[in-house]
Structure formats: structure tokens, C-alpha cells
């Protein structure tokens, strides 16, 4: 008997997979496919542009499209290749030129073949187009890149942007559904027919009366099914009925439909019927034409847009109706929309294709206009002159920079999260659902069985996006599209029969075959075909990304169906193939993979490991462990821990925690400070943190190695005692040892980047960097002391201590146009002070000054200020079990409790943190951490397979400690022994980026808003703290009316207004005549002063501007 493989070992296959493919593979594959094939197909679709000039019309034909290397064009026209580092530093876009071959064709003659630059394509970092993809580790380092950076994002104007995966319903798939609306059941079949950049939803509804209506977006009125079939060219009723199903039960149900279609018995009648609805009131000829074009373009466009495809469309529609009828008869069940087999994820490539199509169309339209306008004047580079490259470049850049994809799609791109390495990885594996966050969509938010191994069960945000924003599991692999032709060939070889010539017998009881949403034929035994297909795939004759699912009906009378999927964006997962009750993966292979003699790809090619999508998994029986395999099993789980996503996979002992705690931790890990990238000395992120002495966790999981988290840690190991401490750690506060803090525990740096660019204005004026001088008539001059740190070039010196308000880059700008003419301006031309100063609430040391040039050619400074953050009361910390808390007290070491060995905890957390939250994982981590410290090697806390408490207990016992992790402890203040033993161990703690210094805020008096004269809002503007309604209620209840008036009027926006008692309108003080005046009553006015809130005065005036006359009726107070 061959050696049984151990479950624990097969994770090396997954490690190899993640190492070779990288965590951002899905983005890179998608993008690579787009630039290498997608671009060309979009151009081919357009093909040519006809230039209709009066005398000699000609065409411009489009040929091959190619993308060059990423480069930058300087202001002086010089071109140079760039690396991502430079683009980040100089706020450039990492983009490459797109070249398109264009040929002018005039009267059938081809001439002037030229290659034109049509625009720039943003380049995905580490894609095939990116220079970094070809570099080895050492070269990456010398190029200033982090060799562990996964890539998969774009750099637009210097900022890193990710196109997050977008979950979508599988296209071209017939989904039947049973809807209950007001007590009535309605049966519906839906298809989202889509071709790149265009989607059309087809809906077939079974009416109460038995009729079937077809709804197409390009037709305003629903169409009867039979009429559509006739219009598609299916002549006889028998054919129509048979195309649905030859089965009598189903044909009986179709009777009503035929009755309803009696008014259009022929193809022409049917076309006119449709034409009447899409082009009402036009010529009959035109109506028919419109009906036909509707059928060709707007109806099931994925099957083709020519008239030859109408037969296929009819067959497809027949199948949709067949499914609908089978559902009606109860032969099949409604399709599950939340089944992951019915979903695909769109990544950067698909998203960019949509965008590029419209951009390219705009370019061609503009080109045509330009060429027609220039008319005859040919010769030279006419075509080139007619191309405005900005159309494509700006469209793509703007969309990626803002996330605005047009047609209401916003938030498609996001700024890459660089808080720590883990958050970056997690961000790149995020998936968004297009479903509205404002609607409940309960089912869509639920965890589905098909998510296993594809979507992380833990990692999702809380709140509105819960369950809609997901994260790929470690084992998830996104399919790439497989060329259909060869797979189809295989199917014919395996005995499939085309729908065009299918024997009647087969049409009656055969299995229907679908390939990527096309109904292509029948086969006698679907299950056999599926098996044969899989066999070929395991032999390497069919692409591993192709999947097959055999779907038998609920009732024997129904059709069994076979779906072959070749599309990109399906979520697959690797599984070990089991044959005859034995896994094909042997220990020998695992050893070879571990020693890099074999790769996971080889295993896939040999059919040992298989990629299974959610649909195919329905035909499989997967065993969790090798021991449980029976003869019925088809697959074995590669590594159960791979069901988690990036964030959740670093939680030690997650299986011992209450589920939501793992979700909380998944969110919190992304906020913890660590060592995000070794490129930090050159990084120019607006905000960035760095933990000074990060440690890799003593209790690790497999994914610590898998994802190289140990090289980019995000926390510190802390000695943690579970103990109350004088009430200073109630409500989740934590106590911290002052000596630990003194020694550098959780010390971090905060970096903020300030930017200043010298812009050039119209008329040759420009900003200048200088130390503003008090004598040179500068508006907004701040005072000498704010400029004290500037050197002669107007920029701060290195390592200077800066406080809020200190100027770091002195800059003056020319006057703004609007301010140019001022009545009493006598001093002549002036400049404005537009210096860049430190934020009022921040301070620090000038860490780095970068001097560079922007694309516009202006000089640019980037000044980075660092601020050391020593843990203090109010700073937020969290363990890896969703146990967060702020420091409640920093305690001197001599006051801290101590063990008999003299160990003093770094952190003390309150025992009340545990009973209700049930984060038992933290206890085990604590024990494991302690055992690991005693043993001298890290402990493995991987979910389901980590070191057990029993084993850890043994280690502790051997070294003279309690296996329970408890110890005798003494109170440091009194020296008395605690009555009970205290649980103390080593837990990995994360410092979260919420620190008091960034939040602390108080105000006595200060800024007010210009419009309302009320105090400003928010810390950044030195705002007031709102005395809100509820606070107001308190004062009312208490009867403290003077306090109330003081808060709400005197200390808020008190204002005196003059009111004319006669008309009740606002009067004013005429300074020239030195008297009060009323515009309405003139001399007869009696004017009084009234104290009101300024906001009220504003209200009166706003009403007056709306032609409402608000009159105040005054009366004496007493």
C-alpha cells in the first residue's frame, strides 16, 4: 500500500501556488489578457472609419494594436522610461503608449500605412507590460521596489489605485426563479446576455393564464414567446414546440402561447408585430428592418449579431422556456442566485475593456470629425494630426484616479491600503458586490456553502457593507478564459451531437449540452461525457481552467443538462483528485514540491491536483482529511486552512473563537501598525506609520510563511496577565507597564507628507519658492517666527523640529485674477503667501525633503515630517482575537504584579473581556506563546491543525510551569500574594492607528464660520464641541435657562440687528448720516436694537431673497 499522505504536509502545494502565482494573480491575469487580446478585439470590432468627404470619400482601416513600455514625456518633449518608484515620487502616471496601425483605403486602394500613437494605457504594476515583472529579486531592490510587493495596482498621478474585483451574476446563463408577489406565484427565466461592454437582460415570464411573455430591454412592450420564435425564423408550430421540448407534458403547457400568437402566423407577420412595438408608426419596410435589427443586436447578443445566428437564438430561447416549464412542473428547482457557480468576478482587465471601448469609440468619432473637417487637404500625416491622444489617456486616467466608471458606477477603484503589509494583500484580494448597500439583500449577504475555499468566511466589514464586500480565500484561483474552439472539438469527439442535426430520440431524452451560455447540442449520457471530459482534462488535453458540470433533474421526466464553462472570472479552488478511494497526491510528490523539484502546475498537468469551480464541485464529494476518504469520494481537500482569506488566516486558533471575533480581528489587523514596506525611507504616502521594533509573532500560523508576514510584521509579543487592576482596566481598557514603554514597547513613527508645487499661470506668472519677506508686500504674511526654519531656497532644513503652523515650504503666488482691482489698492502689485505649513494639531521632525519636477515642469517639493509616538493613555491596542482596548493607565514597574521569577507583565487585561466574547483562542495563544518562549521556537497556531493545548502543556510542565498557564503572582504595591493564581502568558499585540494625539481636542473660543458666524466643526478646524439637542433638553429640564442662553446664544452666534418697529423689517445704521435708517419707512421709522442669533438674521435675509417679507413684531419686555 502506498504511503498515506498526511493532511498537514499538503499545504506546501498551496505554498508553492501562492509563491509562484502571487496574491494578486487575479488582477495580473485579467490585465495581461486585456492588453494582449482584449485591446485588439475592441479595435477589430470597430474595424475602420469611413471619412465622408464630398469629393473623395475614403476609409481609415485599423490594423494591429500594440502597447509600448511605460514612459514619461517631460515638458520639453523628451521621453524616458520610468519605474514605479519615480512615478510615485513625482506624481506621474505609470502608463505606456498604445500604437495602432492605420491604413488609408481610397477607392479600394490601400496606401499610407502608418503607426499612430492613439493614447496611453495605465500599466498595472508587475503585469507583463511593467518593467518590474522581468526583474529578479536583487534587481527589484536596486530599482527601489519591495521584492515582496504583489503588484496588481495602478499608479495614477503618483497614487496607487486598485480596481477591486466586482462580483457579477454569471453572464449568458438561464436562471429560473419562482417569485411570490402578493400571494401569486410567478415563474421567471432570466438571462444576462453579455458581450464585452454590452449587456442585455432577457426575461421570460409565465403568466397566470399560461401565456409566456418575453421582455427585452430594446423593446418597450413584452412580446409573446411564439411570436418571437416565428420572427426568429422558426416556421412550423411543431418545430417551435420541439425546440422547447418534445415532451408532451411541456408541449401541453405551450398551448396557450400558440393561441395567443394566432395574430401573427408567419415570419413576416411576427416581424411586423414586433416592428409595430419597436418602431411604431413607421413604414412597414422600416418596421420589419427595425424588428430584425432588434432581434440581431438587442436580443441575446452573446450568441451573435448577425441574421445567421437567429436559429441559435431560437434554440436558446426554447431552452429557456423549457427550463421555465420544467420549473412549473416541479421537475427542477429554482436556481440559486447566491450559488457561487452562478457568479463571476470581474477584475481590472474586464473593467478596463469596458472603459477602453467607449474611449476608443470617442476617439474614432473625433477622428472622423477632424478628418472630414480638414477635407481634401491630404498628404503629410493627416491621420496622425486627426488623433487626439488625450481622449483615451484622459478617460482611462480619470476613471482610475476617481473610480468613476460612468453610467453611475462609482467607487470602482480605491486607494491601495498601505497601513501594513497584510492590509495591502487583503485589499488586493477584495471583492465587491454591485448590490445596493441600502437594501437589505439578506440572502446575498449570507455565507453560502459554495463560498468554502473561495471566499473567506470571516473577513467582511461590519455594518452596511456586511457580506457584500468579500475577500478571496487563500485557495481561490480565478479562471482565465479558455479558447472555445478546441474544447468544442473535444465534445464532438466524445459523442456530442449538434443541435442542428439531433436525432429525435436524443432530443427527447438526451442530455442538453451548454458551452459558456451557448446551447450547442445533445448527448445520450451526460454523466459519462462529464467523466470523459474530466479524464481528458486530467491528461492535460483540455485546459485546466475549463470546467464541466452535469446537472441531473429533480424529476426523471426533466432534462439532464451538462454545462461546460470556459469563461474568465469563475472562482476555482485546487483539490487533490481521489481515484478508487486513494488520493493521487503522494508523500513523495509533496517532498518534491517542498524541495522545488515539482511545482503545483506540474501536479495540475499530471491530473493530481484539479481546479474545481463551484458548479463542478456539485458533482464532487470532497473529503476533509485523508483518513475519511471512502470509495465515493472524488476529491480531497488540499489544506483546510486555505478556506480563510488573508486577514483571517493569521489568527491563531481561530476555531476556538466565537465566529464574529474572527471577523472583528480580520478588520482590525488592517489597522495595525507594522513594517509595511522596506521602501519606507523613500515612500511618499500622505500618511504612514512605522512600528519601530516590530516582531514576528511567537504563535504563528502557516500563512505567516505562506504570505511572508514574518518578514513584514505588524505587532509585538507582549507578556499579558489577565487581572483586574484598581479599576483602570474596566470596560476593555488595558494596563501597560511603564518600564516596557520606556524600553520601547510599541513605539511607532507617524509620517505625514506635505507637498508644494510651483505652478505656472497664464501670462507667464508663476509661484516662487522663497522665504517670504516682511517688506515685500505679501498678502497673508504670517510673521517672521513661522518662517524661521526655512533655508535660503525657501524649504525647511532637515531634522528640524517643527510645530503646528511652522512653514516648511515658503511659497508666494501671483495675485488671483479676481482680486486684481481693488478700489483702495495703492501699493501696486502684490504676491500672496501660499506657503505650506505644518498642520495646526501636529508636530514632529522634518524627516525627508524630496525635490523634484512635476510633469507640468514645475519644481516640486515633498516634505515628510515624522513624529515619534510613545504609547500613552488612550492609545488603542488589540490582540489577534478581536479584543481591542485603549490604555487606561501606564503603571510603574514597581507597582505592577510580578511572578515568582520576577516576570512583570507588559499588559494587563481585564478578565471580564472573556466570558461573553468567548475568545478562547486568545487563552490558547497565551499558553502557546509562553510555551514557545520557554522552548525557544515559535509555536504553530494554525486553525484546525495547530499545536494542541495538551502538547503545549507538556512543554510547560517540563520547564516547571503550570500547563494551565497560571502562576502565583504578587501585588507590586503591597508585596502580598494574590489569593488565586493568575493566568499569564505571551500574546501578540497589535498597535492600532487610532492614537489619542490625533484625536484629542478641546476649545474655549476660536474660529467661526464665515456664513453663519457659528463655531466651526471638527478638530482640524479647531471647532467647537456641539451642545446638541439632548444637552439642551437637560438644561431645560433642570431649569438652567441662563446657562442655556449662554451656550446657545451668547457664546455662539449672538448678533444685534436693527429692526424697524413700524414695518418689522431689518433696518441699518447709515454711517454717513450717522443715523439709523429703514428703507421702507424712511423718516417715520422707529428703530430698535434686537439681540438674535446670527443664524436667525441669516434666515430672515434668505427669506427676503425669496421674496418673503418676514416681519418682526416688537414689544417691550416688561
Amino acid at each position, binding site marked *: 500500500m502506498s504511503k498515506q499522505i498526511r493532511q498537514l504536509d499538503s499545504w506546501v502545494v498551496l505554498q508553492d501556488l501562492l509563491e509562484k502565482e502571487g496574491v494578486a494573480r487575479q488582477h495580473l491575469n485579467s490585465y495581461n489578457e486585456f492588453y494582449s487580446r482584449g485591446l485588439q478585439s475592441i479595435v477589430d470590432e470597430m474595424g475602420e472609419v469611413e471619412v465622408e468627404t464630398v469629393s473623395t470619400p475614403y476609409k481609415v482601416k485599423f490594423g494591429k494594436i500594440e502597447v509600448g513600455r511605460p514612459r514619461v514625456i517631460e515638458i520639453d518633449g523628451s521621453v524616458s522610461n520610468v519605474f514605479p518608484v519615480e512615478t510615485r515620487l513625482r506624481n506621474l502616471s505609470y502608463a505606456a503608449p498604445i500604437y495602432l496601425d492605420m491604413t488609408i483605403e481610397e477607392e479600394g486602394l490601400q496606401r499610407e500605412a502608418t503607426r499612430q500613437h492613439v493614447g496611453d494605457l495605465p500599466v498595472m504594476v508587475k503585469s507583463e507590460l511593467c518593467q518590474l515583472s522581468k526583474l529578479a529579486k536583487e534587481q527589484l531592490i536596486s530599482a527601489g521596489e519591495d521584492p515582496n510587493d504583489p503588484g496588481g495596482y495602478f499608479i495614477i498621478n503618483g497614487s496607487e489605485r486598485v480596481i477591486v474585483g466586482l462580483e457579477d451574476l454569471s453572464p449568458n446563463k438561464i436562471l429560473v426563479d419562482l417569485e411570490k408577489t402578493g400571494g401569486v406565484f410567478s415563474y421567471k427565466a432570466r438571462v444576462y446576455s453579455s458581450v464585452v461592454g454590452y449587456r442585455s437582460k432577457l426575461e421570460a415570464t409565465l403568466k397566470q393564464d399560461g401565456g409566456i411573455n418575453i421582455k427585452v430591454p430594446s423593446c418597450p412592450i413584452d412580446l409573446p414567446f411564439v411570436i418571437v420564435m416565428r420572427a426568429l425564423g422558426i416556421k412550423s408550430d411543431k418545430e417551435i414546440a420541439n425546440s422547447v421540448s418534445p415532451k408532451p407534458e411541456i408541449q401541453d403547457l405551450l398551448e396557450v402561447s400558440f393561441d395567443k400568437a394566432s395574430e401573427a402566423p408567419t415570419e413576416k407577420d411576427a416581424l411586423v408585430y414586433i416592428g409595430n412595438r419597436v418602431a411604431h408608426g413607421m413604414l412597414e419596410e422600416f418596421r420589419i428592418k427595425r424588428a430584425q435589427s432588434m432581434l440581431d443586436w438587442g436580443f441575446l447578443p452573446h450568441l451573435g449579431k448577425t441574421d445567421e445566428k437567429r436559429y441559435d437564438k431560437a434554440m436558446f430561447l426554447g431552452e429557456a422556456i423549457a427550463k421555465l416549464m420544467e420549473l412549473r412542473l416541479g421537475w427542477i428547482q429554482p436556481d440559486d442566485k447566491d450559488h457561487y457557480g452562478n457568479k463571476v468576478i470581474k477584475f481590472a482587465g474586464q473593467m478596463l475593456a469596458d472603459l477602453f471601448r467607449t474611449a476608443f469609440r470617442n476617439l474614432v468619432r473625433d477622428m472622423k470629425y477632424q478628418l472630414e473637417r480638414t477635407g481634401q487637404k491630404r498628404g503629410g500625416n493627416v491621420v496622425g494630426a486627426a488623433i487626439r491622444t488625450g481622449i483615451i489617456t484622459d478617460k482611462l486616467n480619470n476613471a482610475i484616479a476617481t473610480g468613476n466608471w460612468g453610467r453611475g458606477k462609482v467607487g470602482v477603484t480605491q486607494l491601495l491600503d498601505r497601513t501594513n503589509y497584510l492590509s495591502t494583500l487583503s485589499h488586493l484580494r477584495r471583492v465587491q458586490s454591485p448590490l445596493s448597500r441600502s437594501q437589505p439583500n439578506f440572502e446575498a449577504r449570507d455565507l453560502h456553502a459554495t463560498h468554502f475555499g473561495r471566499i473567506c468566511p470571516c473577513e467582511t466589514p461590519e455594518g452596511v457593507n456586511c457580506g457584500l464586500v468579500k475577500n478571496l480565500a487563500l485557495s481561490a484561483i480565478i479562471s482565465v478564459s479558455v479558447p472555445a474552439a478546441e474544447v468544442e472539438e473535444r465534445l464532438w469527439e466524445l459523442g456530442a451531437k449538434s443541435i442542428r442535426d439531433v436525432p429525435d430520440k436524443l432530443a427527447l431524452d438526451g442530455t442538453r449540452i451548454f458551452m459558456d451560455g451557448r446551447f450547442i447540442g445533445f448527448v445520450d449520457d451526460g454523466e459519462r461525457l462529464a467523466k470523459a471530459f474530466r479524464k481528458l482534462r486530467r491528461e492535460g488535453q483540455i485546459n485546466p481552467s475549463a470546467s464541466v458540470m452535469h446537472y441531473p433533474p429533480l424529476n426523471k421526466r426533466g432534462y439532464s443538462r451538462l454545462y461546460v464553462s470556459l469563461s474568465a472570472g469563475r472562482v476555482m479552488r485546487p483539490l487533490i483528485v481521489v481515484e478508487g478511494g486513494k488520493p493521487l497526491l503522494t508523500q513523495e510528490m509533496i517532498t518534491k514540491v517542498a524541495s522545488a523539484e515539482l511545482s503545483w502546475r506540474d501536479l495540475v498537468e499530471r491530473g493530481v491536483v484539479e481546479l474545481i469551480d463551484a458548479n463542478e464541485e456539485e458533482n464532487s464529494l470532497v473529503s476533509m482529511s485523508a483518513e475519511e476518504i471512502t470509495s465515493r469520494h472524488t476529491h480531497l481537500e488540499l489544506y483546510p486552512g486555505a478556506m480563510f482569506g488573508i486577514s483571517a488566516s493569521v489568527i491563531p486558533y481561530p476555531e476556538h473563537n466565537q465566529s464574529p471575533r474572527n471577523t472583528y480581528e480580520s478588520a482590525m489587523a488592517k489597522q495595525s501598525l507594522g513594517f509595511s514596506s522596506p521602501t519606507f*525611507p523613500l515612500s511618499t504616502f500622505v500618511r504612514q506609520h512605522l512600528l*519601530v521594533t516590530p516582531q514576528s509573532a511567537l504563535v504563528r500560523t502557516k500563512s505567516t510563511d505562506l504570505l511572508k508576514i514574518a518578514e513584514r510584521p505588524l505587532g509585538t509579543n507582549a507578556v499579558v496577565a489577565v487581572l483586574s487592576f484598581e479599576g483602570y482596566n474596566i470596560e476593555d481598557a488595558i494596563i501597560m507597564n*511603564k*518600564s*516596557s514603554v*520606556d*524600553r*520601547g514597547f510599541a*513605539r511607532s*513613527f507617524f509620517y505625514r507628507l506635505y507637498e508644494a508645487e510651483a505652478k505656472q499661470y497664464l501670462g507667464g506668472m508663476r509661484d516662487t519658492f522663497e522665504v517670504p519677506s516682511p517688506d515685500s508686500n505679501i498678502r497673508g504674511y504670517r510673521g517672521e517666527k513661522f518662517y524661521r526654519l526655512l533655508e535660503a531656497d525657501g524649504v525647511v532644513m532637515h*531634522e528640524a523640529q517643527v510645530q503646528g503652523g511652522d512653514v516648511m515650504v515658503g511659497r508666494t503666488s501671483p495675485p488671483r485674477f479676481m482680486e486684481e482691482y481693488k478700489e483702495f489698492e495703492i501699493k501696486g502689485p502684490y504676491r500672496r503667501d501660499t506657503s505650506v505649513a505644518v498642520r495646526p494639531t501636529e508636530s514632529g*521632525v522634518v*524627516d525627508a525633503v524630496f525635490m523634484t519636477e512635476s510633469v507640468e515642469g514645475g519644481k516640486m517639493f515633498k516634505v515628510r515630517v*515624522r513624529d*515619534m509616538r510613545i504609547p500613552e493613555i488612550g492609545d488603542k491596542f488589540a490582540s489577534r482575537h478581536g479584543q481591542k482596548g485603549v490604555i487606561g493607565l501606564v503603571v*510603574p*514597574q*514597581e*507597582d505592577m504584579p*510580578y*511572578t*515568582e*521569577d*520576577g516576570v512583570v507583565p507588559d499588559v494587563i487585561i481585564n478578565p471580564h473581556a472573556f466570558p461573553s466574547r468567548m475568545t478562547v483562542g486568545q487563552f490558547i495563544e497565551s499558553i502557546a506563546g509562553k510555551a514557545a518562549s520557554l522552548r525557544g521556537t515559535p509555536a504553530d497556531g494554525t486553525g484546525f491543525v495547530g499545536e494542541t493545548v495538551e502538547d503545549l502543556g507538556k512543554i510547560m510542565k517540563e520547564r516547571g510551569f503550570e500547563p494551565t498557564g497560571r502562576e502565583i503572582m*504578587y501585588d*507590586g*504595591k*503591597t*508585596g*502580598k*500574594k494574590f489569593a488565586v493564581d493568575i493566568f499569564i502568558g505571551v500574546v501578540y499585540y497589535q498597535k492600532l492607528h487610532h492614537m489619542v494625539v490625533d484625536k484629542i481636542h478641546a476649545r474655549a473660543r476660536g474660529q467661526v464660520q464665515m456664513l453663519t458666524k457659528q463655531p466651526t466643526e471638527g478638530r482640524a478646524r479647531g471647532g467647537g464641541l456641539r451642545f446638541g439637542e439632548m444637552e439642551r433638553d437637560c438644561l431645560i429640564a433642570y431649569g438652567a435657562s441662563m446657562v442655556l442662553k449662554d451656550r446657545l446664544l451668547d457664546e455662539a452666534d449672538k448678533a444685534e440687528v436693527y429692526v424697524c418697529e413700524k414695518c418689522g423689517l431689518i433696518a441699518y445704521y447709515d454711517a454717513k448720516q450717522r443715523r439709523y435708517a429703514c428703507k421702507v419707512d424712511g423718516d417715520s421709522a422707529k428703530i430698535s436694537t434686537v439681540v438674535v442669533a446670527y443664524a436667525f438674521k441669516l434666515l430672515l435675509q434668505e427669506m427676503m431673497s425669496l421674496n418673503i417679507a418676514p416681519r418682526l413684531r416688537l414689544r417691550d419686555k416688561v
Partner: protein
Amino acid sequence: MFLNPRPTSISNFSGSLTGELFDMLKVKVLEDAEDRVSLQLDGVDRSYANAVRRFCLSEVPSMAIDDVVILENSSVLYDEILAHRLGMLPLKTDLERYILPEKCDCGTPLGCQKCRVLLVLDASAHEKTRTVYSGDLVSEDREISPISASIPVVKLAPGQTVKLEAYARLGRGKEHAKWQPATVSVLLDGKSEDSFVLKVESSGVLRPKEIVTKAVEILEEKLKEMQKEVSAKVE
């Protein structure tokens, strides 16, 4: 303040704490090693014993680098981090020859011969990456130097230089952990109610015995001071 059940009147207190306050006091040395000392204290009240334990951590002065004047630093570590690391170096301390800066009458910010020691570091890497160790610090007082010469301070890449002056001073653990002479200071329950075991481990800056005796000395001083104050007020 005084929770001592034994009738010891404050006004009567005089002389040595160890000698007269506790009639029954017995001290037995359980362990006396280079880096640790373990004492069995019998016939002493817990509060006194614990005070001694606490003083070993917070009150006994020791030497540590306090001010660093950085002349050049092209290493990857920031000035503040470098200074912090230097501060953490345990320095051999001589309590006879040096006094706390606040008790010194020199009045200069950088101190004088009595209250500070100057250490100089001048290191650079040329061809190879180099680690700067505590042993590279040159002290003006040969007696006052890091307890080990092999504590890494900073790594320098070729071309990087660190040049600085570090001023070491006496200080107390209650101000900053770098001035804690003891790494471990525990008071454990002994066999009977009045019996305790005091274990003190030194970081190496002072001999462990020295730490304990100094702690007792300071306690005594403080009590004396208190006695003076109280009697002055009571009379």
C-alpha cells in the same frame, strides 16, 4: 503611612533601620552570585520588605546615557531611536564617585566631573556592512562603560557614519526604566508570616548586594527625613 503593627514610635526612631527598628530581624543570605542575590528576611514587616524591593527598581541610582549630541548620523536609525538605544545600554556605575545631577552644585546643563560621564562614538562603515557595538563607545572614565562590549547599537551600510557625544548621568528607575539597576526584584512569601525572600537580579550596572544595601540606605534616609519633618511640625 506606617502600617507596622509593632509599637515603634516615630519620634523614637533614630539611627540605622536595620539595627534598631526590628528587634527580631534576621537576614540570611540564600544565594550570593555575580548577578543575583537572594536574601531571607525574617521578623520584618511586609511593607518594609516590599519597600526595599520597590526601591531596588525605582530609587537606587545608576548610570545611563541621558543626553546625546549627534554630530553626524547617516545610518538608517533616526537620531531619536539611536539615542533611545544608547540610553538602554547598561553602564557600570560607581555610586561613590558620582552624584545625582540634581544634587550637584555645578549648575551647568551638561554637568561636571562629579555628575556626568562623557562617552564618544565615532564609527563608520567602509567596504562592508558593519555593526556598531557598545564596545565602540569610548568613555572618558574607564570605569564607567557598558557592561558588555557586544551589545549591538546600529548597523551601518558602506558609506554611513555615526558620530556622537553621549552624556551619561545618574538617575532613578522611577524616572525612566534605563536607570533601573535591577532587572528582577521580587519579594516572595517565606515559610512563616514574617518571613520573606527577597530576590534581586542586577542588570550588571551595580553588584546585586550593592543594590539592596543602597535601597535600604535610601529607605532609611527617607524615613529620617520624614521623622525630621513630622517632629518639626508636631512640636
